[in-house]
């Protein structure tokens, strides 16, 4: 079946989105046809708005619509504690726990030679610039427990130690069990990982 041109164009645009195949793209496009004009306009405006107004925070490189992001600007937060993550979505994940009161640093990826990503492609220099004034006393490395995440964490840990010695404490987040999962065979890989890392960094 061939669609009318504007509809075909919308389907094609949806198909470019991650995780959207041809079938889902069609379903979304037909859904848009069914919703009210106001709803459609709200959606279009939200898309444009996010592109115009969301920037990266010049300090932590999280997304923000302010000059400085809400977390960096919050005097109530512990400015001596810094959590290093790969992507902005990882900030959201840690924030959701409501447990952490320090600041963040978003690297913008992880070291992966196979993808041509070395330390220089990440915001590691910017991290060291933040550490230079001595406010930060502890850095928590919270990259994912993949080979690439571990490589990145170990690389940064070594660099911090050689630059700042004992003045900055470095810890690796304890990647443990997903909440609510029972510790049966299915979680063995996670458990083993936790064990493998128990003395590391």
């Amino acid at each position, binding site marked *: 079946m061939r669609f009318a041109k504007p509809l075909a164009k919308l389907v094609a645009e949806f198909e470019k989105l991650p995780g959207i195949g041809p079938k889902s793209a069609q379903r979304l496009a037909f859904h848009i046809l069914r919703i009210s004009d106001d709803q459609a306009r709200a959606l279009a405006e939200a898309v444009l708005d996010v592109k115009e107004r969301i920037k990266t925070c010049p300090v932590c490189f999280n997304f923000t619509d302010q000059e400085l992001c809400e977390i960096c600007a919050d005097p109530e937060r512990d400015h001596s504690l810094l959590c290093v993550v790969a992507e902005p979505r990882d900030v959201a994940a840690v924030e959701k726990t409501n447990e952490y009161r320090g600041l963040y640093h978003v690297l913008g990826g992880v*070291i*992966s*030679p*196979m993808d*041509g990503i*070395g*330390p*220089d492609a990440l915001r590691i220099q910017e991290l060291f610039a933040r550490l230079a004034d001595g406010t930060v006393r502890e850095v928590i490395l919270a990259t994912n427990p993949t*080979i*690439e995440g*571990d*490589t*990145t*964490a*170990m*690389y940064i840990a*070594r*660099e911090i130690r050689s630059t700042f010695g004992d003045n900055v404490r470095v810890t690796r987040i304890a990647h443990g069990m997903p909440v609510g999962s029972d510790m049966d*065979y*299915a979680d*063995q*890989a996670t458990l*083993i*990982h936790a064990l*493998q890392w128990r003395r590391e960094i």
Partner: protein
Amino acid sequence: MQVDHICLIHFRNYDKLDFIPHQRANVIVGRNAQGKSALLEALYFLSTSKSHRTNRDSELIQLGSEYARASANVRRETRPDITIEIALSRVQGKSCLIDNKKKNRLPDFVGQLNVVIFSSFDVEMVRGEPALRRRFLDLELSQISAHYLYALSRYRRTLEQRNRALKLVNIGQAHLKTLEPLDQLLATYGASVMVKRGEFLAKLNITAQEAYRGLAAGNEMLEVNYKPCVPMAGGGPEEVMRSLLNGLAEKRDVDIVRGSTSIGPHRDDVEMRINGVGVRDYASQGQQRSTALALKLAEAMIVRESVGESPVLLLDDVCAELDMQRRSGALAFAARGFQSFVTTTSLEELPVGVLGEVGVFEVSAGAVTQL
């Protein structure tokens, strides 16, 4: 453990098969290319999610079909009974299911149905390249140790990353410092892999010696030794890790020029000797075959010991590989409490009586009938 129902759909030359095997010994007789080996292959596939005959899953799908399905009911003594299933599709790839629940991680699937297979490929393992012996170690250890499977997959990924980093360093596109965490990770997971291999081979050596005595005439003595890529010193994970780190540091310059890692368990080997003489280069064909079979029977004993119940034994075309005396030895072993599947082109060539309780089935053009 026992397989008490096998279903195949569009698997190799089976269009549709519903097969209820005997609880103990199953002798599968048929001419070549009728589906004898494919039946054993299906069981092996359900156990490991891989074929022992091909690396390409698509070859398992019947010609002209879009998908294949293999499933089996497994009765187990120390764990709950399960239904294990693999669905293959030319488009969507492979799904592994246990009790109809999809398992996305290999460690959650492999090791639920334990099988030990002996086929012509195992003789190759004895006389061929070191890579074949490492493959043997990896497959066996993955079945009995989730830790091993995990450490191995992490090791392989790290190795890929390090090899690429070496190439980048060589052309000046990456800093030497990038190698340091990769060396550390490689040594950590490499040490886990090597310690497990060392433990397994120490056990295998003892059990294979015993199995070999049951197969060979005279007073031949088989020895199986681990030949690790670096000295393992005391043999604990820390010592091995340090040994690997030293090796990696020593070879770093060479590795950078070559763009590949020359130290690590991906360079391990296993040495087999009969009365002190290397089996790979100096043994007769008969001795090589006995060695391969002894290793497999020993493996079955080790799986039994570590899993706490007997694996299913798959003996593919033993007549082609073994003389009458060794065939008897193999079948007598199978009769020691294993469910077994033994294929043969002719019943006369097989000392079936040794098996005791037995079901005999004929396979012809993808159909199985009881004789």
